[in-house]
């Protein structure tokens, strides 16, 4: 795979500058947002900030790194093909969701905190696809994870618990990653901070297994690998529709690019490869199973993300097992398509809400297209995404499971559509008089179109044999699971709709009790500390320390 989204223009020699502008634009807008005088410009900022990143993805792939070496940790940014693909779709989604937000939530887009969190998350999201050194990557990853808190809690008055869960998992991921990155850099020649140097030396590193385990846990927390998926359902539900769209479609891919960049694709690592495959495949079905019991349209989409990301994780695990980078490029395309489709689906919730039952139902076929695209319905982009992960998953058990998961996804997506219809009925009154429909429909249609066009364009450029696109056997192979899923839905969805609802975030329901346990340890520590603050104890401790320090030396002789 050596092409890019589009072939680099031969005359384009400004890669580093383009990368710099892509990174600087959200930052400049962020500073502008602090000025009250520029307050009026704020909404437009949301739609414009990602545009240079989109341009960079199209123009600057493979065209030289941006190196900032006058710092303690030299920063290196570069756009390789999977990075450019994911950056392109993410930037497109950010721009569309920004435009959508302007129409959908005028008040929030006037709020400086909301805009600041939006821009910081965007900055991290743009940076994470281009960062080529460990420190920049860590910075970008922290930015795409932590400020998103503001996007999740902003809309809800009672989002405290949702936000706390989100930030806890995000921080846990950061803690895993910082140790993994430190171990990675230590193994690299001359302690180089370049990711490629660290990964190159990983196979021979004494900390290889610990590092890979921490990387999988850290990035797994971002993409919702079981058991780190607990934050996803409630966060996507609590966030506003455009925020949920960028989180589920763009921010989540920070975890995918992390796995792609940091895992060694030439190692044939059995232990962690098997673990990732198992966790991923389990998540692929677990997400659907729990998702089917949910009522809220956004929660259902979140569970679909858990399922889809599980499939990507399994693909990457298979690549780790086989020691081949084909899995990485396949996973990138799959994740790119998932981002557009999932983002489009979130945006469609608002579109459908504003087209009440009395109005035309023309958006429904498009929603259906997006939904079944996730299941791989040919000739949507989803079929190409499935094609991309077909080779790494192979024809054996994993291939069969992948097909089964397409059936399951069809079922879940039709369940989502049913729930969406109910949402529409419930919301049409509230939004009937709103005039913002066009501002929602245009960005949504752009994303929907991209979900079809981008995988096709990418395949056209990169596939060794583009004739696979027109192979009818392929067509049938991807079509029948969708048909079976649809038939299953016809039979069972009514019954599933009456099934008891699993708590949102499923095993997250146990967390408050666990937190209470941990809190008990905290109060024990607090008690111990209060003892050490007593005068007699403190004075005795001081003497004991002096004696111990002296004693060590005296006895040591």
């Amino acid at each position, binding site marked *: 795979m050596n092409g890019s989204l589009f072939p680099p223009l031969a005359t384009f020699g400004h890669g580093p500058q383009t990368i710099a502008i892509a990174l600087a634009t959200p930052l400049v807008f962020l500073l502008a947002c602090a000025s009250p005088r520029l307050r009026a410009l704020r909404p437009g900022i949301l739609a414009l900030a990602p545009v240079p990143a989109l341009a960079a993805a199209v123009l600057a792939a493979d065209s030289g790194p941006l190196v900032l070496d006058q710092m303690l940790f030299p920063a290196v940014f570069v756009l390789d093909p999977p990075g450019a693909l994911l950056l392109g779709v993410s930037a497109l989604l950010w721009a569309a969701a920004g435009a959508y937000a302007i129409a959908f939530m005028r008040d929030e887009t006037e709020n400086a905190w909301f805009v600041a969190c939006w821009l910081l998350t965007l900055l991290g999201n743009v940076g994470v696809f281009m960062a080529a050194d460990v420190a920049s990557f*860590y*910075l970008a990853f922290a930015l795409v994870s932590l400020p998103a808190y503001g996007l999740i809690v902003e809309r809800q008055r009672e989002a405290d618990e949702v936000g706390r869960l989100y930030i806890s998992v995000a921080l846990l991921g950061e803690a895993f990653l910082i140790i993994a990155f430190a171990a990675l850099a230590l193994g690299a020649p001359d302690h180089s901070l370049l990711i490629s140097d660290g990964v190159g030396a990983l196979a021979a590193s004494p900390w290889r297994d610990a590092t890979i385990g921490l990387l999988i846990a850290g990035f797994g927390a971002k993409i919702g690998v079981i058991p780190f998926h607990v934050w996803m359902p409630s966060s996507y539900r609590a966030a506003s529709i455009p925020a949920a769209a960028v989180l589920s479609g763009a921010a989540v891919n920070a975890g995918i690019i992390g796995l792609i960049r940091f895992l060694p694709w030439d190692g044939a690592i059995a232990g962690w490869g098997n673990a990732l495959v198992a966790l991923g495949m389990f998540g692929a079905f677990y997400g659907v199973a729990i998702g089917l019991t949910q009522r809220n349209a956004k929660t259902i989409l979140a569970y679909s993300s858990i399922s889809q990301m599980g499939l990507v994780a399994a693909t990457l695990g298979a690549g780790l097992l086989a020691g081949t980078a084909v899995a990485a490029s396949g996973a990138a395309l799959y994740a790119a398509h998932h981002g557009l489709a999932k983002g489009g689906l979130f945006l469609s919730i608002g579109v459908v809400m504003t087209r009440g039952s009395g109005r035309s139902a023309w958006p429904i076929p498009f929603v259906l297209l997006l939904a079944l695209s996730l299941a791989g319905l040919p000739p949507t982009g989803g079929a190409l995404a499935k094609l991309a992960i077909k080779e790494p998953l192979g024809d054996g058990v994993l291939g069969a499971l992948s097909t089964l998961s397409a059936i399951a996804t069809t079922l879940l997506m039709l369940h989502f559509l049913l729930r969406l219809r109910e949402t529409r009925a419930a919301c049409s009154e509230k939004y009937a008089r709103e005039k913002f429909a066009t501002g929602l429909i245009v960005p949504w249609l752009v994303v929907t179109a991209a979900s079809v066009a981008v995988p096709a364009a990418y395949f056209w450029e990169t596939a060794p044999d583009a004739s696979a696109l027109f192979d009818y056997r392929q067509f049938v192979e991807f079509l029948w699971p969708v048909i079976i899923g649809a038939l299953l839905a016809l039979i069972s969805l009514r019954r599933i709709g009456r099934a008891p609802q699993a708590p949102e975030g499923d095993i997250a329901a146990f967390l408050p009790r666990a937190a209470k346990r941990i809190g008990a340890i905290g109060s024990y520590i607090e008690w111990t500390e209060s003892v050490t603050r007593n005068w007699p104890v403190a004075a005795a401790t*001081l003497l004991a320390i002096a004696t111990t320090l002296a004693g060590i030396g005296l006895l040591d002789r």
Partner: protein
Amino acid sequence: MLMASDGLATTSAGFLLPSIIMLPVGAMLLAFLLGGRRTVLTALIVTAVGIALAAAIAFVVWQEDRALVYVVGGWAPPLGVAFRADGFSAIMLVATALIVSATGWFALDSFGATKGAPETRPTFAFWTLLLSVWAALNGVFLGWDLFNLYVALEMLTFAAVPLVCLDGRTATLTAALRYLLFALLGSALYLLGATLLYGAYGALDIGLLSARVRPEPAAWVALAAMTAGLLAKTALFPLHLWLPPAHAGAPPPASAMLSALVVKASFFLVLRLWLNLAPSQMGEGIAQILAAMGAGAIIVGSVLALRQARLKLLIAYSTVAQLGYLFLVFPLAAGAHAWAGSAWVGGALQAVSHAFAKAAMFLSAGLITKALGHDRIAEFRGLGRIAAPAVVAFGLGGVSLMGLPPSGGFTAKWLLLTAAIESGQWAWALVMAVGGLFAAGYVYRVIAPALAPAQTPSPAPPTPVSSRGTALALALALFAVMLGFAPPELFGFLKVGAPLARHGSVE
């Protein structure tokens, strides 16, 4: 190398060292003559000159790539007394001058004398104490003679304690008394040790002592006593009983100086003792104990910070925790190992970046308290709409404490973390990672409600806060963050004159 003190002589530009100590002392004496508004003005002008002097010292250290030395009156030790500035001293001088100056400007709002108004006791006291704290800190960072250092330490204690109880309330008086008594215990132990060393080796000069000290009972007892005394003054867990009430009770600009700088001075001397003075084989067993106490401080301090109801106490406990990181330097920077250099630089950066971050956080806590009329975290909802810049300054300081890039805290913790992993001391690496999580937790406790919309309209309209104070808090926080963008030469600068070469050269 400068270790053989026999040849200790004043280097070029060595006169800068006594100048930066005498400058605040002179200003303080002048203040007694001038009084009132002119004290404030003098102090502010002098801090500006002090920044220039500190910068000049750092520049010369960097240019000459060796420690700067000044021998008083040309009498080389043991007859005379020497001052010495290595890379770490120099950066501490710069940080001290900047932070003292910033807190001085910040204090104009609460301790500025207005024209025509009668001079108040706390006002005059604050400015003279500020100058003496600063002079004492410079003395500690430059001192190379154990008795001189004792004088500087005492001056520091006697200037810092009254800062705690400037408002004269019972609670702060109690806190100050606690601080004083415990610090005096520490002083007694330090003096005991210093006297023992003098008796055994006939020298007080650190350089001379480093050549003479042997691992024998007298040295062990002396160093143990001095270390324990210094730990009490640093408030290293479990000797921290005085810190939370003192740092939380002092007026915000005083808290900023106490938490950012004063506790670092005694840590700095522990480093001097075990890395500059004692032979390396003595330090190895001790290092693990110091690090274990540091780890305890990180865990216990953070957990307590997570459980405080008041913002200033939360920040004070966070100081208890962050001081712990400094003591992880001992097992990592000792010995002739490849990682010792990273650990040394990491420790120095942790001291500096925590100083800026913590000063910013205490100043923003002052602004928040002023705006709301209280510092109860449970009632912070909607704060982000009332005092947004103060919340941003607090958050940026928090970014550095958490060790998130691009802050100085990230660089520091990254260096310490890699040193811990490389040396196979995984336990310390784990403690650092957990400490980062806890730090995020207690910063989150403040930021999360601040970002949330106000639940009910606040009973009293918020008091407007000074824009100068806000700008200063933001500037300090940005400094902590921008340290991460420092040029790579900083690594080399911090290693100038560092006690690493003795253990084997690094790089």
